[in-house]
């Protein structure tokens, strides 16, 4: 039982690094992609958060990005193995197109996450660990403190830009 907790925490750290690096690679914090994401970013900045971090959090809310790709890829590997991960990537791409997004971050996130989850399954992890891990990872970004999370993303973004 404790072993599963440990695996979930490790999976959360891996999923956190994975989706944040893919999102920042595709320049999600640069600007609010749609008017809603822009407004959420400005609302977070108005509470004392970082503007770029706020835009990235708005983009995560308004379109399936690499975090959604990681979650659905882990779900796909859980129910149907590696082909399920590819199916999840297709579904995320369709979802991105519905939400007027180009779909690079979500689709590439789902494809990379499929291989990461399948690789860690070879060393004793379960796909279910990555589902719970991704939910924990999104909790730390979107659910605890918008101000602190946006400042952290802004710090990483300035380091990349």
């Amino acid at each position: 039982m404790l072993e599963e907790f440990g695996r979930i925490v490790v999976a959360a750290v891996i999923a956190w690094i994975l989706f944040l690096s893919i999102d920042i690679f595709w320049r999600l914090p640069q600007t609010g992609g749609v008017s809603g994401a822009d407004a959420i970013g400005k609302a977070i900045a108005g509470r004392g958060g970082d503007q770029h971090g706020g835009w990235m959090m708005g983009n995560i809310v308004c379109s399936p990005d690499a975090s959604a790709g990681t979650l659905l890829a882990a779900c796909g590997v859980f129910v149907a193995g590696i082909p399920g991960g590819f199916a999840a990537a297709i579904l995320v791409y369709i979802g991105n197109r519905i939400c007027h997004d180009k779909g690079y971050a979500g689709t590439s996130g789902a494809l990379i996450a499929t291989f990461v989850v399948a690789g860690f399954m070879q060393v004793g992890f379960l796909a279910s660990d990555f589902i719970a891990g991704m939910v924990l990872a999104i909790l730390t970004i979107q659910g605890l403190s918008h101000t602190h999370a946006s400042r952290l993303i802004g710090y990483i973004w300035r380091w990349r830009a």
Partner: protein
Amino acid sequence: MEGLIAAAICLIIALYGAIRTVLERNTLLRLPFVNVMNFGIAGLIVFILPHPLTLVAAAAYFVGSTLEANAIASAYARRKPK
């Protein structure tokens, strides 16, 4: 029994997101908490019914709720100031 703790974590985080959504006063700042809830529910759907087609249900739920959040945020951003 494997996966039971993972399902419980998804459920608890989804409930936490729902509670934070109700407590937050600013409509735009509620949406990230709704996003947390959506992640938890999408994971939970797959745990409750582990079948290949469940993936389509989880993706449909997640994309639909994201589209709704997108619509709420853009409509709220474009509303006329009173």
